[in-house]
């Protein structure tokens, strides 16, 4: 048996070294401060901020969330404080939180993404950018950037050109071939990919015959999506040579380990934070115990170790 403290949990995401592979996912952890009383942020591999746009956004009309079987739908509508306010106010806390800070960015046009990347590049305390390409391209009739390979590549290339920070492109699962999307963003210069964002879904109130979300459709997250996310992470990890960050329905150390075994170098925990605010910290501890039980010295030794019969 190895000693608990000897176990090495460090991982690399491109040029970036993380204390451990567990991050809090965008939109589920606010700007970090919201959870500070309830979890030791310095024990996490990092925190991904709520998606930031050039200008503040008010978001969608209510109701914005509805619970579904083992999951939830959200149509927040990308409400956020805008990049200026983010840098001026939200970064003050994040900088002192003792964890890696990943800033999630979103835009209406390719130019928006580039300008955001430029503006965030000089800011002290930002460790990486995560590019949310699941939002609509306003100039292309509202088709999501992340569903058309050429658009996904163009966004990636423009962010890449605008910053020296590590660039992680967050893939949309609402596509037929996610591995192909991963390949094009890799070619366009991404340092890593993260997946999955939410799956588009809906829910209806039978009595009123109305959709339960004012926006009609919303993004499904939580344990319900884990098998789909895991499958996609496995497909992507086999396809690209850049690091993969696994996201989707992770709520326990066992869930996180499944993603690591499937080939993810790190994971993000989203919806589970709402149920258990310290779940990220507990997952870190659970991974450590698992490795100890398995007699392993480094978490890196478990990444991509899936054994497939005849594969």
């Amino acid at each position: 048996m190895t000693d608990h403290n000897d176990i090495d949990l460090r991982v690399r995401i491109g040029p970036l070294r993380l204390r451990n592979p567990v991050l809090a996912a965008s939109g589920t952890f606010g700007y970090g401060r919201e959870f500070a009383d309830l979890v030791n942020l310095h024990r996490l591999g990092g925190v991904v901020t709520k998606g930031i746009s050039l200008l503040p956004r008010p978001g969608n009309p209510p109701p914005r969330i509805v619970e579904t079987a083992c999951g939830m739908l959200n149509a927040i509508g990308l409400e956020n404080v805008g990049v200026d306010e983010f840098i001026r106010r939200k970064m003050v806390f994040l900088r002192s939180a003792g964890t890696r800070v990943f800033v999630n960015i979103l835009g209406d046009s390719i130019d928006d993404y580039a300008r955001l990347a430029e503006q965030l590049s000089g800011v002290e305390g930002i460790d990486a950018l995560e590019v949310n390409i699941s939002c609509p391209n306003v100039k292309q009739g509202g088709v999501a950037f992340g569903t058309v390979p050429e658009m996904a590549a163009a966004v990636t290339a423009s962010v890449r050109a605008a910053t020296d920070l590590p660039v992680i492109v967050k893939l949309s699962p609402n596509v037929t071939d996610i591995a192909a999307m991963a390949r094009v963003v890799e070619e366009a210069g991404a340092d890593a990919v993260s997946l999955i964002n939410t799956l588009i879904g809906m829910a209806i109130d039978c009595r009123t015959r109305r959709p339960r979300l004012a926006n009609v459709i919303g993004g499904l997250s939580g344990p319900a999506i884990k098998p789909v996310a895991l499958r996609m992470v496995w497909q992507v990890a086999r396809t690209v040579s850049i690091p993969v960050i696994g996201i989707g329905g992770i709520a326990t150390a066992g869930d996180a380990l499944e993603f690591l075994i499937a080939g993810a170098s790190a994971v993000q925990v989203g919806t589970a934070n709402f149920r258990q605010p310290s779940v990220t910290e507990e997952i870190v501890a659970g991974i450590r115990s698992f490795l100890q039980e398995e007699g392993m010295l480094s978490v890196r030794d478990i990444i991509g170790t899936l054994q497939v019969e005849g594969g």
Partner: protein
Amino acid sequence: MTKFQEKAQILDRQELAASIIRLTLHAPLVAAAAHPGQFVMVRVGDSFDPLLRRPFSIHQVSAGGDLQLLFKVVGQGTRCLARLRPGEKLDLLGPLGRGFRLQREDPVCLVGGGMGIAPLYFLGKRLLMHGRLPEFDPVLLGAASQRELALLADEFFALGYDVHTATDDGTLGHHGFVTDLLDPVLPRVSRVYVCGPYPMMRIVAARCLAAGVECEVSLEAHMACGLGACLGCTVRATEGYAHVCLQGPVFDAGEVAWQ
């Protein structure tokens, strides 16, 4: 405002009426920090269905660190909570949100409908700590029937409040809406605290506005986090959107864009 997560032991379970439950929990950290009108997010069980915590107002706290929740069984989550028995534990997050503003002078009025009475009892008790004279403060309580209301009304009466009741079926007090009781009261008070069904709060808010009386309302919204992180608990405000778990649940009636 520090928030705590506590595994609170259930000390007592009371069934006030069919499907109305009052749980007494030992939650010293949350209880000591709580202010009337604030709420807790309660984890419903260990399985992933139901997944999200449920928001409940703090019904009352004791100096010894006990805290009460009063709730009605309306769906899957509250059904699970209703099955809990003394000795079991409940995982709480709180105290959350912004509560009522405590008024020290001038008569106030408390208006509660159904489970909206829950936070008002904590408020009623806390207001007394400021040396108020409760016999000049009217408390208007409404519910479907006598069974749901009698005990709660007695408890406000025992605090010394000027209690008036209304029931939908006329089995206790006025036969009709609690809002029917407002007219004689409004000229005598300078602030109204209200919690209950949305249409009731909208009426009270409008009447207070017309009478030039301050009015605070406690709103509900579906919540995922209760912490200001998910941005899901939106309501329409006079200026854009507001988030119930952050700027609320208690709002000045004038801040709300009533629908």
